[in-house]
């Protein structure tokens, strides 16, 4: 789906180094409203670093991140880059809620407490309001029956669904997913992907780092391939994943292309 409007998120020439090692070497792309964008690439290619730079969990060295035309983290319109006040950065962060590979639910809070923490403490909702909203979200992810459990009692798939509800509770403009199914046992992957598919169908704007090729192919409107800190391919999933002549893309998607060829042959 091409965005007729202006992008929700616009990344311009983003660079990030750790010491002498340049991990992101100038990344530019846009995410439009209701788009689901997949970010693919080998381990170590910089996918997590990119996602973490977007909400300033890591501070990029240069480049601009625009969230609905507002620069995230710093003001670089002047000659000197000036960091935003903490309150502005905090607001921008919650507008791009993040779902982590390791769930990161707070272990000393129950499921519902995890979900209402942000709405109550940050958005200033009343307990009742926040709880009602949280129960709706927990129902959407199929977790309302565990509302009063502590995270440690849940399976990985259940924890990740709660983490998604926690992120949604902040009513973000877009959702960032960093390999949300990579630390799950294989039999638990499907339940999390199911929830993400539902979100995509409901029109949630999402930027998803994943190794789930079928998900990228079927759900994403657009995929991007990151290689050694550069976006080397971007476009509709079919084109990038099945048809790109780029040798790196061809080798990265070789397995998928083999399967596609087999099913066409049969």
């Amino acid at each position, binding site marked *: 789906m091409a965005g007729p409007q202006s992008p929700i998120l616009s990344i311009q020439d983003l660079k990030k180094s750790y010491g002498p090692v340049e991990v992101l070497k100038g990344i530019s792309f846009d995410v439009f409203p209701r788009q689901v964008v997949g970010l693919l690439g080998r381990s170590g290619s910089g996918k997590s670093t990119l996602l973490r730079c977007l*909400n300033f969990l890591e501070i990029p060295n240069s480049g601009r991140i625009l969230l609905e035309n507002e620069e995230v983290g710093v003001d670089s319109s002047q000659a000197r880059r000036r960091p935003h006040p903490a309150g502005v950065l905090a607001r921008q962060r919650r507008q791009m809620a*993040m779902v*982590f590979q390791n769930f990161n639910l707070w272990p*000393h809070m129950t499921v519902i407490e995890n979900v209402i*923490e942000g709405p109550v403490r*940050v958005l200033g909702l009343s307990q009742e309001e926040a709880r009602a909203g949280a129960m709706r979200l927990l129902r959407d992810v199929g977790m309302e029956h565990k509302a009063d459990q502590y995270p440690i009692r849940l399976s990985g798939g259940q924890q990740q669904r709660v983490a998604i509800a926690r992120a949604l509770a902040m009513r973000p403009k877009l959702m960032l997913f960093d390999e949300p199914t990579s630390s799950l046992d294989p039999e638990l992957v499907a339940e999390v992907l199911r929830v993400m598919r539902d979100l995509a169908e409901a029109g949630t704007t999402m930027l998803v780092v994943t190794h789930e090729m079928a998900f990228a192919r079927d759900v994403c409107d657009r995929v991007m391939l990151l290689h050694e800190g550069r976006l080397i391919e971007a476009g509709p999933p079919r084109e990038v994943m099945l048809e790109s002549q780029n040798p790196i893309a061809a080798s990265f998607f070789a397995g998928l292309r083999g399967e596609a060829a087999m099913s066409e042959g049969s």
Partner: protein
Amino acid sequence: MDYDWNFGILWEYRGMLWQGVLTTMRIVGLSVVLGIVIGMLLTPLRMSDHAILRWPATAIIEVFRSAPPLVLVVWSYYCLPILTGLTLPGYWTSVVAISLYSGVYFAEIFRSGVQAVDRGLIEAAHSVGMSRLLILKRIIIPLAFLRIMPPFTGQCIMAIKNSVLGSYIAVGEILYEGQRLSTHTFRPLEILTFVALFFIFTIMPLSLVAGAIERRVYRRYFRR
């Protein structure tokens, strides 16, 4: 052994013994509270990104950790007045020395607790837009506290044991009063046995209860 036990002596001198028990409890209470305060002041300094803050805190911690607590008590009693011109009564000298000694240990315990909090949990808090203060209050401190319960209760128990050091500078806590009574009455067996049992019967239930709470906390929040 042909000893004619006479525990009636304890009842006879109950007033003195009770005073000793009270003094011991006051020293323990004050030095634990002051020690926690000292620990809470030192922890952020010790963990600061600024060397100007971190160095003095580290120095204080290392110095007080390296001296035997009895030496701290005796040194403070005899040398501090000479150096500062300020004379504290023995009671307060022992409270201050034991507080400082416990305080630097509390500081290290608190630091280990804060460091044990998973970075990812803090990042999750940032990503829902929580402020640093809110993250400290709602995530870091509660989680750090749950993690340090065993060493924390251990250090509180050490403060109870260290309270007897005041006896060396004639502070009338239970050991000092006990010794005084035994020489006065020639009944050290009854009286000092009472002193020993007082500590054992205070500390043992405390550590049993603390252990049970720790296991409960662990099962509830941390164990799969």
